[in-house]
């Protein structure tokens, strides 16, 4: 029996739809004209606060 339908090339390479969609969106954002480009990139900025835990206690968090 053949494999289940024709999978898109990105799924055959192990990528999920969300990853594919986000890559497409980022590429489009990088091709925008100036005021729109900085707006779009600023809108998509994400802040992370990461803290490692040792012995059941969190250490000081790092912010990204």
């Amino acid at each position: 029996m053949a494999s289940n339908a024709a999978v898109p090339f990105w799924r055959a390479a192990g990528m999920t739809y969300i990853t594919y969609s986000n890559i497409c969106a980022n590429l489009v954002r990088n091709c925008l004209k100036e005021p729109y480009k900085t707006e779009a990139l600023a809108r998509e900025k994400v802040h992370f606060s990461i803290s490692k835990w040792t012995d059941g206690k969190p250490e000081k968090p790092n912010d990204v």
Partner: protein
Amino acid sequence: MFRQASRLLARTTTATTWRRSRAFSTDLPATPTEDSTFIESWKKVIPNMDPPKTPSSFMTPRPATPSSIPSKITVNFVLPYASELSTKEVDMVIVPATTGQMGVLPGHVPTIAELKPGILSVHEGNDVTKYFLSSGFAFIHANSVADIIAVEAVPLDCIDPALVQKGLAEFTQRLGTATSDLEKAEAQIGVDVHSALNSALTG
């Protein structure tokens, strides 16, 4: 049968007391979901017991298909951060589905289409508004409501042609030198998106 009548009456009153500012595709009066042939044959055999509920009675009713085709489609075009068009009545939309450019007129067969990077054009009378979509989905319902969702959508004049050419050249080169499957896939995506941007600007 009378027990079920009171449940149905209660359901219709709660539905009408909701006030929503934006109409959804499920707002139109729904067709009742009772399996009438099953209930009738049950009653013939076992008249004293209530017929059990069939799976279709648990489903929320599908929005009713109006008997005549409406003259315009209602478009809801949303992005993760904003709602571009909300219940806008238009004559036609052309969506960039993976299977090709698909024109949607009122009365279109219900469809779920995955979108590829391309142009969405909204036709209203003589005006055409075009957006470049990065990817997303289009849901067309039986009652001529189209929900189009995209991750990123920009009007065509916000795209910088020089950056598009540069990106296309870069990814074509990366596609040539890619080794692993993942790198090849990413480079291919880059080439696809930039060529779509290119043809959007020139076409």
